[in-house]
């Protein structure tokens, strides 16, 4: 069968979404309860049970939204929240949302249970019950049009912009044409490309959102005097921020951009979306835009990505909680040197062995196998990284209010 019409079995969720995994999420709601939550996960040691959490005691709307988005994520079938008992973030409220989503859910306070051992025992028995219960989750057919995929790059070298990100971009064009949803991020790594990005907006509203988001990122870069380009990049052959930006943005492919998503916001319709992970202007400049690769992956997953691409030149080993991570490199040496961690070798296009289109189709075949249940390299090695920081963001993308334009229209 042609790839575009491929079908496989997913997990049916109450909100109408379909998952490609059926995971149990154990969530700690403050650093003080992390150890107990981690013990529960480690002692069960199941590939389908994993840990996420927020370290802060004082709550943060951005972080709470992100936790809720993971609870609602279609790859998650059950949720256990573990709190200490006196923190701001409320484990019971989170468990209630999971129940409303038709998922198995439980919660506990360590102070009420009476310490480490009792809490760990209770958590383990709760997770075991939920593991049994979600075995009977309804399976349902799905295909590329049901998929949401996110992409980011890290540890780039010159092959990233020539092969790795190009493979993703060409695949994104296919995913778009097949009715799926593609998300790309790192607007701070698109500096110098305002006109190029804005002109790709699918509507007036989208062009406005993209322009606002771009200008916000530019202000952010100016204020921190950092353009996401480093001496190592220049030594490696990149000459300008525009060149580096284009090497990153090429992974968005060539289709129109539907609009801008904020962290923890899901796309209203399929197509290509830009994710804005930059903090919004706020009284204490809350947060750093992209502290590390796992934060970027978590942002994409919070927008509903069933699986995520991480494109690297120098190599990376990370995976992610909630959604499988496919690691792609355009550097053949890196692939050979770290084969146990790298999922996809995009270097064949540089060797002249295949076209960009053939490369993208072989990536599509890997996406299908992963969606069918085949573990990625990082999943098989039990990588389940996550990162949820304090940050401030408005709930929706803003647009530039232009008085002059209004005057012209009048």
């Amino acid at each position, binding site marked *: 069968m042609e790839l575009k019409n491929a079908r496989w079995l997913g997990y049916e969720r109450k909100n109408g979404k379909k998952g490609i995994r059926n995971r149990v999420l154990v969530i700690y709601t403050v650093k003080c309860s992390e150890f107990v939550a981690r013990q529960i996960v480690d002692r069960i040691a199941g590939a389908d049970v994993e840990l996420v959490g927020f370290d802060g005691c004082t709550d943060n709307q951005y972080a709470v939204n992100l936790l809720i988005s993971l609870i609602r994520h279609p790859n998650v079938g059950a949720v256990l929240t573990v709190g200490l008992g006196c923190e701001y973030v409320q484990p019971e409220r989170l468990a209630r949302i999971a129940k409303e989503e038709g998922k198995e859910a439980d919660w506990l306070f360590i102070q009420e249970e009476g310490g480490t051992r009792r809490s760990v025992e209770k958590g383990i028995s709760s997770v075991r019950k939920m593991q049994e219960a979600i075995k009977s989750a309804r399976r349902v057919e799905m295909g590329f049009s049901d998929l949401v995929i996110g992409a980011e790059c890290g540890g780039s070298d010159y092959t990233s912009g020539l092969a790795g990100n190009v493979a993703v971009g060409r695949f994104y064009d296919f995913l778009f044409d097949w009715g799926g949803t593609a998300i790309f991020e790192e607007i701070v790594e698109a500096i*110098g490309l305002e006109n190029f990005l804005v002109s790709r907006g699918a509507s007036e509203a989208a062009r406005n959102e993209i322009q606002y988001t771009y200008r916000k990122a530019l202000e952010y870069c100016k204020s921190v005097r950092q353009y996401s380009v480093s001496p190592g990049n220049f030594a490696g052959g990149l000459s300008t921020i525009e060149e580096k930006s284009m090497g990153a943005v*090429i992974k968005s492919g060539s289709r129109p951009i539907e609009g801008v998503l904020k962290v923890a916001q899901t796309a209203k319709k399929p197509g290509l979306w830009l994710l804005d992970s930059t903090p919004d202007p706020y009284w204490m400049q809350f947060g750093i835009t992209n502290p590390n690769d796992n934060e970027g992956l978590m942002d994409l997953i919070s927008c509903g990505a069933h699986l995520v691409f991480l494109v690297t030149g120098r190599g990376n080993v990370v995976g992610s909680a909630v959604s499988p991570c496919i690691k792609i490199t355009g550097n053949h040496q890196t692939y050979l040197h770290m084969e146990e961690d790298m999922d996809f070798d995009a270097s064949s296009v540089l060797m002249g062995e295949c076209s960009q289109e053939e490369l993208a189709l072989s990536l599509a075949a890997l996406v299908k196998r992963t969606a069918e249940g085949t573990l990625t390299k990082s999943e098989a090695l039990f990588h389940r990284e996550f990162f949820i920081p304090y940050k401030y963001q408005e709930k929706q993308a803003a647009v530039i209010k232009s008085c002059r334009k209004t005057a012209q229209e009048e």
Partner: protein
Amino acid sequence: MFAFQIHTDDNVATALEPIKPGRVLIRGEKLKDEETAIEEIPAGHKISLSTIQPGDDIIKYGVVIGKATKVIQEGSWVHLHNIRSVYDERSSHLDTVTGVPKDTRYE
């Protein structure tokens, strides 16, 4: 020796290995099969596919990635010493080989 051209509109290609003066075969979305390098070019760096005048656009991915600051002869190494960013003024003042800043004092 090989270089990779990413878009047919590009006036630069990326060296896939260290290049010495001489014949370079072009791969990718190319308009010609080869170029003659007139100087050494490190792997991952760019070679010009035509002669570029000061102020002209440097095109890669089919988009402008910078402007020439001097005449760039066909087959030359294209980098910080002969192009500049339209946005990030600081980058054309970095060391050409190492990329290390020269405007920060260590004292």
